[in-house]
């Protein structure tokens, strides 16, 4: 072991600062690591992330409000930086979104010695 905790936390900080927004999409295609974006993003759903930092971890929270992106069924989510680079992509069984609700997506990021 040679990485120090403060070194790992430096990577956490850089990533924390870079993560910017979340977007949901409607495609449930299997995730492939070579993908560069959501398969069917709904761009209107882009929202700034609420970020929380703790030792060797970050938590992001995305909220799709009750006036945006209505009447779609969402099956994918991705985290982006300000230059629209997607860090990850997740798929799940479809979730309908109406004006009666908000959709919240929470993602925990953990940084450790590999």
């Amino acid at each position: 072991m040679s990485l120090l905790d403060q070194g790992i936390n430096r990577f956490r900080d850089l990533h924390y600062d870079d993560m910017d927004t979340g977007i949901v999409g409607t495609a449930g295609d299997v995730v492939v690591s070579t993908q560069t974006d959501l398969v069917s993003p709904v761009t209107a759903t882009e929202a700034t992330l609420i970020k929380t930092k703790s030792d060797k971890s970050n938590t992001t929270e995305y909220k799709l409000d009750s006036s945006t992106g209505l009447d779609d069924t969402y099956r994918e989510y991705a985290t982006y930086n300000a230059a629209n680079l997607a860090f990850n992509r997740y798929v799940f069984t479809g979730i309908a979104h109406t004006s009666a609700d908000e959709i919240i997506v929470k993602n925990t990021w953990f940084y450790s010695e590999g």
Partner: protein
Amino acid sequence: MAQFDYLKTKDQMGRPDSTGLLVKKVSDAVKIDDRPLIVERENIGNSWIVGHARNGLVGANTNTIGGDQQVVGSSGRVNTLLRVVNRNNIFYERFINELLKSTPFTSDWDTTNQILKMDSSSIHTTPYNTIATIGPFYKNLINITSVQIIVNENKWNENDQILYYVSADDKVNFQQVTNNTKTQILNIGQVGWVKIVFAGNGGADTYIDELKVIYNV
């Protein structure tokens, strides 16, 4: 003197030194893990929301979603956990936050040290019998058929017990599983939970520092 003799011997061999100092290359890598992803639905109830087609109206209003008078704030909001998914169907809990801490719970979820302890007390004359409920580690409308739990255990005393139970049917039925052994689910379901039972005198010195659940759907 021994070194001198050695050097002299090398010189006598009459060829350049082709050997060098070997330094083992240390590979540093930072591993990034983004699991789990949790999706929730929050019903807005009668909250007054600027710009909302129905919950943004001011004055006499019988047209709210709840059919009641609108209230500024968070009246009538209900939060529902919809999905918990993990990349490659592998869940990690590192006790960084309490997003998936659930009930019943009597052990000690220590986010400062990022461990799950038998108890917060370090007194070892007291016998402890505590429980931790974690989850759901999976919820996605597709059945779980098998699980394998992998845990790093740290025991104050070898007689301390840490027992593991898994439910795939949303805590209706739990079955005991063995650390690092793949187990077929007896009561198949779509919402996975882990229950951990601690017994012994270890208290704060008996703990786990990472929970990994590999599951098949």
